[in-house]
């Protein structure tokens, strides 16, 4: 019990004093997971749109596979990416193993299915009538898809947030691809695993609090946008020109 109380006390001291190691780990975590989310978003929205708007054989099957991959264990993605980018792997010459770039690739792959799947769900949520309306107003296929994606912006934003949440909280890829190298690939989650193993509960708890605080901030921003406190349409997905 005393350990926990001491840990929490120490955690707050570290946070308030802006401990350099804590800041560095947090910054790297944010950088890697935000990059992965950005890359995944750029792939997931067009790909999700393509799957939703095009009719093709096996569409149902593709969607089922995507949904199954929502719950793929992070270590499996870690293993898969490791095999691809390790020195003897097909992409070994890029020397991506144990680098932040490798971690970004791993996390992007990890969160891609959930983002594509939720994008499809978001687009399905837009009334079929809207598409007819846009086409009847003279939209080209591209123009109508762009408007429908815009119409589904809040639900798609939810997909992005969930993807980010999965990226920043995962350990498998970060550990296996990053290697938890201090100052280079050490992120919040791998740090917690390591420090706990070493008995540094204070730092672990501090890192945990930071992780939760990030989640809180993200959710607050999302709520602010969806509640319309910010003039939404022009702040998301490029606004009127989208």
């Amino acid at each position, binding site marked *: 019990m005393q350990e926990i109380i001491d840990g929490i006390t120490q955690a707050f001291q570290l946070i308030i004093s802006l401990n350099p190691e804590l800041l560095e780990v947090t910054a790297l975590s944010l950088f890697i997971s935000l990059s992965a989310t950005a890359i995944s978003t750029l792939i997931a929205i067009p790909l999700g749109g393509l799957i939703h708007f095009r009719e093709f054989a096996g569409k149902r099957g593709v969607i089922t596979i995507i949904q199954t991959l929502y719950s793929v264990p992070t270590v499996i993605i870690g293993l898969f990416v490791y095999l691809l980018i390790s020195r003897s792997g097909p992409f070994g010459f890029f020397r991506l193993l144990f680098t932040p770039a490798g971690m970004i690739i791993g996390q992007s792959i990890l969160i891609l299915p959930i983002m594509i799947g939720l994008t499809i769900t978001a687009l399905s949520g837009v*009334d079929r009538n809207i598409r007819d309306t846009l086409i009847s*107003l003279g939209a080209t296929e591209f123009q109508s898809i762009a408007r429908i994606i815009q119409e589904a912006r809040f639900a798609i934003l939810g997909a992005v947030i969930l993807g980010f949440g999965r990226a920043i909280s995962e350990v498998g890829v970060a550990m296996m691809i990053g290697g938890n190298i201090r100052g280079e690939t050490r992120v919040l989650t791998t740090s917690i695993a390591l420090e706990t193993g070493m008995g540094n509960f204070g730092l672990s708890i501090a890192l945990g609090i930071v992780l939760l605080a990030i989640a809180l901030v993200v959710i607050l921003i999302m709520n602010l946008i969806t509640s319309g406190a910010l003039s939404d349409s022009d702040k998301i997905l490029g606004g009127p020109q989208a």
Partner: protein
Amino acid sequence: MIRISGLSRRFGNRDVIKEVDLEIRRDEIFALIGPSGSGKTTMLRLIDLLDRPSGGSIIFDSLRTDGKEFERRSIRRRMAMVFQKPGVLNTTVERNVAFGLEFRGMSPDMIRQRVGDALQKVGLSGFSKRRAISLSGGEMQRVAIARAIVTEPEVLLLDEPTANLDPISTQIIENLIVWINKERKTTVVVATHDMGQGQRLASRIGVMMEGQLVQSGEMYDIFYHPVNRAIATFVGIDPVRDGIVESNDNNLVTVAIHGIRIQAVTALPIGQRVAVCIRPEEVTLSLPNACPSASSARNCLAGTITHLLPYGPFTRVHVDCGIPITALLTRRSCEELGLAHGMRVNATIKATAVHVIPDPGPEDNQLHVKQGEAG
């Protein structure tokens, strides 16, 4: 303006549109009338080129419409459609109205001006910055109309534009439709299940039933000369069946139904099985002692009142004269005559007001009767 021939549409193995021939004339308001599920929406979607027919063709202003998507789009851009559900997007009213112009690549200045004009026309000038989905049903439908007319279409298609709206919104929208047709010279096709709306708006009407265009023509023809029982019922007549033409003297016929004889005007031959349609407003009721002498062109039937149903400012009076006859009277004249349930009255109907349609009998389920076959 639009010539439709042999148009069909199948969904799976269900024929939703069956061999429809129809011409929409330039500058007219044409009403497609029919019960829900009769194929009106599918017809409008086919006309707007949102869907491709399974058979037949649509010629728009002497252009074929079965080409590539971009060719169809350039034709589609000469039309606009308002759907039953307004389909407004979650953004401002102004942007909703601007979509059609944006798609056509119009400059922002022009768009602003045209959108402003369109919103003024539909009476929503102060609403441009409002969130479209926060409006009432009637206001949303007006946004949808503004969005459609802002592109200045040659043809405006409206699918049940006032379904589920209150009477005031309905009136505003009907006035708008007439205005668009008169002032903008826009050809209008409106689908509605409301006979009265068709009557208020349109010059010509097409009646759809089970995917077929069963009758089309001037309002008067359809109201007074429905070609078959189903249409008669739909336009507010309760046809009396099991009649047979007994004599025909220069098209003045006597029809025998359940022992009652009714005179009517038709060219149908002796022995023809028929149903008789009498519009309720053509029936005059009088008290038994005041029956006018039955002239050669006038039917006078004695009967008993079975029901009195209030119908707005009117009362529908059902009289059992051996055959059921319905009369539509103003509430005032109903009171003056002192009509009540069980009372004996005489129903008088001019022979020219009795419409006779061929009706082979109960096994007849065929809806489609070619025009000209009926009397």
